[in-house]
């Protein structure tokens, strides 16, 4: 019987991979490739290198999977590998920036939605540019990856309150920027 792995929880998939089921890892790649590519693009600014980055992160995660003890969620653990790989990357192209690209399903978006997205991107790029790179990544983990303060702190090692205050300022600016567009 063919079982559908795509509905399984991350931890269950990790356990399968550790039992020797390599295919289970493909579900994890599919689940997190968008986040890894986005981070890769932020660090390297081009698609090929973003892909190499994502590949590097997933292979590191695979070989080190036994080190995942479930203290944090798998996504936090994986993002931590990505963050360290990116921050310590020797050949990265300048500092981390939010990706300036078209959404994959832009055909389904109306002009107003595209304009909201553009404004959000501009506002957040500005907020990131105003911060040291390490904190710029925190903003993208919050705004793009949708991670919680605690998880970002686990990934980056910065105190929750530091992350909160950077996010607070960026969110206020974002709200102001969108106010002009929508209200």
């Amino acid at each position: 019987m063919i079982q559908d792995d795509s509905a399984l929880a991350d931890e269950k998939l990790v356990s399968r991979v550790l039992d020797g089921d390599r295919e289970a890892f493909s579900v994890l790649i599919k689940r997190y490739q968008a986040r890894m590519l986005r981070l890769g693009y932020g660090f390297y600014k081009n698609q090929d290198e973003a892909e190499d980055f994502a590949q590097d992160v997933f292979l590191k995660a695979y070989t080190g999977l036994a080190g995942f003890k479930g203290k944090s969620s798998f996504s936090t653990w994986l993002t931590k590998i990505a963050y360290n790989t990116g921050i310590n990357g020797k050949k990265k192209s300048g500092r981390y920036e939010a990706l300036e690209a078209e959404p994959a399903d832009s055909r389904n978006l109306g002009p107003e939605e595209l304009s909201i997205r553009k404004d959000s991107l501009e506002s957040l790029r500005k907020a990131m540019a105003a911060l040291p790179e390490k904190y710029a990544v925190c903003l993208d983990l919050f705004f793009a990856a949708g991670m919680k303060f605690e998880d970002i702190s686990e990934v980056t090692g910065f105190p929750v309150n530091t992350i909160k205050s950077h996010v607070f300022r960026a969110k206020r600016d974002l709200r102001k920027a969108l106010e002009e567009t929508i209200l």
Partner: protein
Amino acid sequence: MTCRHFLELLDRMDNIDIQEEMTAHAAFCPGCAAELSAVMAGLRLYRLPDVCCSANLVPKIMAMLPLVPAPKRLVSMRNWVLAGLLIMGSVVLVPLMSDFRVLKETFGPAFTIPVSMAFGLIITIYLGIFVISHIDEFGRRLKAYEAVKSGKIA
């Protein structure tokens, strides 16, 4: 809740479900409701996956997995030691049990020999598994030790 408090909470909000008191305020305050939906729309659209998402990343990585070391479950050294102590404890304590002594007196060697063999087998299996699962590590440590030794001699 005042509008100012609402906006403060909105800006400080974590990536979690919106608080009930905020929903309650937004239900009768059109200004705050509009701010809330603007921020939500901005975040939703900002989070959309981008065109750069590659279609061939999964097969590319999957093709590389057989070439890298496969992950293995690690039993911590603490658990190994605990299991070892448990086995040793049973080997020592079981012969002290009154049932054991009664059986020993009744059956003599016909009882003690198979039991000793069973204990021996359990200890051998435990040590066997320990050695097999740590053989790579022993190899690495031996190499490191030899490197240090040859470094000292040289």
